[in-house]
Structures are given as structure tokens and as C-alpha cells.
């Protein structure tokens, strides 16, 4: 069991590395933020996996990390809002953002 849990922990760690790639590449701030969010969730998952191997003390750390990961995103939204109050609905959405975008990944464009 120890071997398997270590393997799962390594797998979760590897998926965190993927998230760091997204933090690096962006391109938008929201992309970086959500990738950091994934690092938070993944970190919680990692601690939960390692908990049985370490006398379960890691569960408390996981709990605190789960709380802090949420606060990080709240901080991001507050920093981005004009008056600092953190209400993301204070400005109307920009219409061009709501246009469905054609991207190079669009499978219908490729096969259609």
C-alpha cells in the first residue's frame, strides 16, 4: 500500500507540473490564476494521499491548504476589481468576450 500511495502521490505531483506550465504560459491572468487554483487542489490531494503514510497529521495541513487556496482566488478577484471591493459583477461583461471563438482546435472546422 505504501508503494502504491507513493506512486499516486507522484502522479498528482506530475499533474501539478502541468499546471505550472499553464501558469508560465498564461496567456491571460485568469489562466494563471486557475492554474494556481489547480496547484491548490492538487496540493490538497497530495497531502490526503500522503496522510496514511505520515500518521495522519497531513490531514490538518490539507484542511488549511483547502481554505487558503480558496482565499487566493478571492484575493485575485478583489485585486482585479476597480474599487477593490471584489464584486466581479460591478462592470458589465464585454460583448466581444462572449462571442464564441473560432480556434485552431475547433474540430468542426477541421472535419466539416
Amino acid at each position: 500500500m505504501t508503494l502504491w500511495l507513493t506512486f499516486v502521490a507522484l502522479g498528482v505531483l506530475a499533474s501539478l507540473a502541468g499546471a505550472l506550465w499553464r501558469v508560465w504560459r498564461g496567456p491571460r491572468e485568469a489562466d494563471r490564476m486557475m492554474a494556481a487554483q489547480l496547484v491548490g487542489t492538487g496540493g490538497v490531494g497530495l497531502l490526503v494521499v500522503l496522510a496514511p503514510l505520515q500518521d495522519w497529521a497531513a490531514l490538518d495541513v490539507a484542511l488549511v491548504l483547502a481554505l487558503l487556496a480558496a482565499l487566493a482566488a478571492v484575493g485575485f478577484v478583489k485585486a482585479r476589481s476597480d474599487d477593490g471591493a471584489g464584486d466581479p459583477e460591478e462592470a458589465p461583461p464585454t460583448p466581444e468576450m462572449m462571442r464564441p471563438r473560432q480556434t485552431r482546435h475547433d474540430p468542426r472546422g477541421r472535419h466539416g
Partner: protein
Amino acid sequence: MRGIWIKAILHRTVLFGAIWGVLTAPGVEGLVAGLFAVPATVWLSLRLMPAHHPVALWRLALHLPRFLAGSVTGGIDVARRAFARDMPLNPGWVELPVDLPDGGRVALGGELSLMPGTLAAGSHEGRLLVHLLDTEAGFDRTIPREAADIAAILGAKRTRDGRP
């Protein structure tokens, strides 16, 4: 109105008390501190989020299996698309009018964000903005059902057509 507040105080005391119990679990001395911490938390939560609606906990419990099933389906759907070679995505937006009160709209948005193919992006002038992973997969068909469930949990009176 009074009844709503008493019910809210009761619900929140049980909720925060349970969380405190879990946090301090094996030790007993932690429970003493809880005698102060739990009421303080209830008071703070009532200040920050006043009780406007009678929350029907049994409806919430009834709703839970649907929510869990939905979030499992949602995860599988996303995983399938992420691993597919041609990555079948057809993203787009829908706006739909929702007559839920503000807290209900946030709850609906949070729930939709975990359900298959839908992602809420807040609301604008009473309309909920929902991003769809695939506009042709019919993900948005479930939204009225979710809204009805949350309205029932909050005991919110609804307009005939679900518009504000």
C-alpha cells in the same frame, strides 16, 4: 420572519458545531473552546449572511444525490474530451433569466459549474451567464431543473416563467 431566524440560528449552530467537532476531533478539551467559538461564528455568519429564506434541509438532502451524480458525469465528460484526439469542443454562451434571489443565483452558478458542460460566469441584469462546453450537447437542458431545486430548497417563490 422570526421563525426563519430561529431556524437559521439552529441550523447554523448545528453546522458550525459539527465542523468544530470534526476539527478538534480526538481531543475533548477543544470542545470547551467550541462553546465560545461556535456561537461567535453563528453571530458573525448571521451578520454577513442574514437569514432571508427558510432553508429546507430535507430538500437539500434530496438534491444531494443528483448533484453528486451530476458532478461525476461532469468530470467524466471533461476527461473524455480532454483525452480525445480531436478534442470535441464547441464552446458558446447562453444567457438565461433566473428569478432566484442573489444567494440562490450564486448557489445555482456554483452548482452548474460542477455539473456537466456548464460554467456560470455570474449574472448581468437578472440573467445568468452560462458558458457551455458544447453548445450542441444539450447541457443547458438541465438548468431549469437545477434552478427549480434550488428555489425549492430556499423556499423562494417563483414567477410563472422563471423570469425575474
